[in-house]
C-alpha cells in the first residue's frame, strides 16, 4: 500500500511503503524489488529513512537488550531500542550512554546511522567513539558483525542505513556514581562571551551547551544562557515513567511563528529561565533530554514545518563566520526561532557531523525566505570550511556536500562497494547522489 512519510521538519514528503517486521525471519525475507531503507523513530529532520518508491523498514520492534556486562559497562542491544528508554535502564545500574541525542525516542540504529552527538560532545565525541561492534544484515552477505577496524564499520556509522540493516550493536557505557546532575545556568550578554565561557570551561564540565537569542541586533547578538552541567555522586530514588514520543502528535496546527511571535517566544524562554535558580540540581532522567515536554516548540511551526541549519566552524574561524551570519540575519530580517551553540572536539569522519570547533544551530520557520537564507548560510559555510549536519538538513544537495566534506567521493565509493546492487535507497541517497 502506498504510504506517505513526512520528514520531521515537515519540508519533505515521500511516497513509498512501510513495513513493520516483528520477527527476524521477516527481515531475512524482505522483498527486494524496490529499494529498502531501515527506519528508526523517523526523527531525522530530513527524509533519511524514507524515499519515493522505497520500502521503509521500521525497526522499532527490535528493541531488546541482548546482553549486559554490568561490571565492565558494555551492553548489546537491538537497533530499534529507543536511546531514552535504554538510558533510563542504565541510570538504575550506575551507567549511562555517553552520547545521547536530544530526544528519548531516537533509536540506537538512528544514533549509528547519523553518528549523532550530544551535549557532551567535547568530552566524549560522537556515537562512533562508543560503538564496539555492529551486527548488520545485507541481502548479499547475510549477517555480518563488524568492529571499528573494518571499512564496513566505518561506513555504517554515519552511513544513513546505506550499508545494510543494523540488527544490533555493542556499546561501551560511561560509569556514573550518582543519579543527580548539577546545572549552572550562566547568563551571557552576547555571543563572544558565550563562546569564551564554553571554550574555557569545556574541560571542567561533562555537558556544555548554550541557548542564544539570534534575533537581537548589534552588540547583543547571541545574548543568552550557557548551561554547564556535571554529574554528581549523590542519588535519589528514581522511578522513571516510560517516555512517550510526543513529537508527531498534532499534524494540523496552523503556523504560529512570525517575526513578532518568534521574538516574543525567545524573550519568554529567557524570562522562564530567569525564574529558575542559576545553580540547580536535577535528576539524570530529567536532565538527559531538555527538549522532552517542550514539544510545543515544534508544533508552533505548524504544518509548513521548519528548517534547521547546524554547522561546525573551526575555533579560529567562527568569529568571522558568525559576523557574516549576523549580517545576513539583519539584512534579511530573518526571525530565528532557536539559536544554540555547542563546542566540539574530534576528527572529521566521512560525511558525518564531527570535527572540532564551534557548533552553531539555527532554526527558522519554513518559507521561501528560509531557502534563500540557507543558501546565504551555505556560502558562509563553504567560505570558512564549515561542516553541516546532514541529519538536520532537508535541502543540501550533492554539490554542497561534495564541497563540504573532503571524504564524500571515498564514502560514496565505499557504499557502492558494500551495496553493489543498490538494494538500499532513500530520499537522502538520491538527493546527495550517493
Amino acid at each position, binding site marked *: *500500500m502506498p504510504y506517505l512519510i513526512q520528514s520531521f521538519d515537515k519540508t519533505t514528503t515521500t511516497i513509498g511503503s512501510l*513495513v*513493520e517486521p*516483528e*520477527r*527476524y525471519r521477516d527481515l531475512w525475507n524482505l522483498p527486494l524489488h524496490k529499494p529498502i531503507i531501515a527506519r528508526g523513530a523517523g526523527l531525522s529532520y530530513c527524509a533519511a529513512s524514507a524515499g519515493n518508491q522505497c520500502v521503509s523498514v521500521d525497526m522499532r520492534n527490535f528493541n*531488546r*537488550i*541482548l*546482553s*549486559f556486562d554490568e561490571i565492565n559497562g558494555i551492553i548489546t542491544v537491538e537497533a530499534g531500542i529507543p536511546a531514552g528508554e535504554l538510558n533510563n*535502564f542504565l541510570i538504575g545500574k550506575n551507567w549511562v550512554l555517553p552520547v545521547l541525542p536530544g530526544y528519548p525516542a531516537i533509536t540506537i540504529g538512528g544514533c549509528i546511522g547519523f553518528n549523532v552527538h550530544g551535549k557532551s560532545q567535547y568530552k566524549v565525541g560522537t556515537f562512533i567513539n562508543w560503538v564496539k561492534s555492529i551486527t548488520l544484515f545485507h541481502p548479499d552477505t547475510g549477517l555480518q558483525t563488524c568492529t571499528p577496524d573494518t571499512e564496513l564499520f566505518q561506513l555504517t556509522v554515519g552511513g544513513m542505513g546505506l550499508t545494510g540493516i543494523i540488527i544490533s550493536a555493542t556499546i561501551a557505557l560511561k560509569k556514573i556514581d550518582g543519579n543527580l546532575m548539577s546545572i549552572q545556568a550562566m547568563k551571557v550578554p552576547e555571543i563572544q562571551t558565550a563562546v569564551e565561557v564554553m571554550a574555557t570551561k569545556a574541560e571542567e564540565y561533562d555537558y556544555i551547551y548554550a541557548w542564544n537569542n539570534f534575533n537581537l541586533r548589534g552588540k547583543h547578538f547571541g545574548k543568552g544562557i550557557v548551561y554547564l552541567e556535571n554529574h554528581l555522586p549523590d542519588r535519589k530514588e528514581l522511578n522513571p515513567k516510560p517516555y512517550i514520543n510526543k513529537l508527531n502528535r498534532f499534524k494540523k496546527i496552523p503556523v504560529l511563528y512570525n517575526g513578532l511571535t518568534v521574538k516574543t517566544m525567545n524573550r519568554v524562554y529567557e524570562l522562564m529561565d530567569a525564574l529558575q535558580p542559576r545553580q540547580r540540581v536535577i535528576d539524570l532522567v530529567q536532565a538527559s533530554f531538555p527538549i522532552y515536554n517542550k514539544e510545543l516548540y515544534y508544533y508552533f511551526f505548524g504544518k509548513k514545518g521548519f528548517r534547521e541549519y547546524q554547522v561546525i566552524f573551526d575555533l579560529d574561524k567562527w568569529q568571522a563566520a558568525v559576523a557574516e551570519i549576523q549580517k545576513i540575519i539583519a539584512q534579511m530580517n530573518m526571525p530565528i526561532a532557536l539559536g544554540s551553540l555547542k563546542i566540539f572536539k574530534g576528527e572529521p569522519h566521512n560525511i558525518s557531523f564531527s570535527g572540532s570547533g564551534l557548533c552553531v544551530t539555527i532554526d527558522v520557520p519554513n518559507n521561501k525566505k528560509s531557502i534563500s537564507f540557507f543558501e546565504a548560510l551555505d556560502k558562509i559555510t563553504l567560505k570558512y570550511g564549515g561542516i553541516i549536519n546532514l541529519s538536520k538538513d532537508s535541502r543540501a544537495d550533492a554539490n554542497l556536500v561534495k564541497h563540504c566534506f573532503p571524504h564524500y567521493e571515498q564514502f560514496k565509493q565505499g557504499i557502492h562497494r558494500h551495496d553493489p546492487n543498490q538494494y538500499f535507497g532513500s530520499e537522502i541517497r538520491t538527493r546527495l547522489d550517493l
Partner: protein
Amino acid sequence: MKQAAIIIGASSGLGRALAEAIARTGTDVIMSARAEQELQILATHLRIRYQIQAEVIPLDLATLTTATAKNYVDQCFEKMPHCSQVYITAGIIDELDKGTEAVDYLPKLMQVNCMGISYVMNACCQWLQNRSANITLISSIAAIRPRGSNIAYSASKIALEYMALGLRHHFAQSPLRIQVYRAGYMETALSTGKKLLFPVAKPERVARVLIKNRHKDTGLIYVPVFWLPLSWVLQYLPWFIFKKLKF
C-alpha cells in the same frame, strides 16, 4: 510474594507486549509459542531489564492433544509452582477464510484457536482451581456477529468463548477467575496491511487493561471498551442493512 505468569503467544503482537508489561511489574514469566528463538531473545531481555525469572517452553497448539497439553502445563507449573496468572493470546487467521469452496484451513483454525487452547485451559484449571488466579483468553470482535470474511475464525473464537465461559460457571465457587476479552483491532502482524473500519489499538494499551483487570471476575468484556456500544449496533442492525456491509 513473588508472582508468575504463563503467556501463550508471547512471540509477537499482544502476547509480546503483555510479557513485557507483566515483567515490568516484577512478575516471573513462562513464555510459549512456536518461535523458540524469538522467545529466547525476549526472555534474555526481560531477565536483564527487570531482574525476573523468564523461561521459554516452546508449544505448538496445532498438534496439541489432551495428553500433550497436560504435559506442557505440568512442565510450566513444575518450573514455576508459584504461577497464578495464565494469558492465552495465541491465535491465527487465514487469508482464504472468506467463503472459498475449499475449507482445508478449517481444521487448523479450529485446532489452534479453540481446541488447542481449550486443552491447555482445562489442564490449567486443574492446577489453579483452589488459587486466587486468573486464566485470561483473547477472543475477537469477529465473534459479535457472523459475517462473510474470517468465517471459520469467528466460529473458532465463539466456540472458545463458550468453552471458557462454561468453565467459568463450573468454577464459579472457586477463587479462580476465567476471563474472556473480545479484542478489537490491534496494531500487530495480524492486522498489517488490512483496511480497517475502526480505530486500531496499540497492543501495549490492551496489555495494560488485561493486567489491571486480572483480579476482577469480569466474564466476557470488550477491549478497548468503545467496542461495547459498537457491538450492540452490529448485533441489532437489521439484516437488510447488515447484509449490505462489506467489512
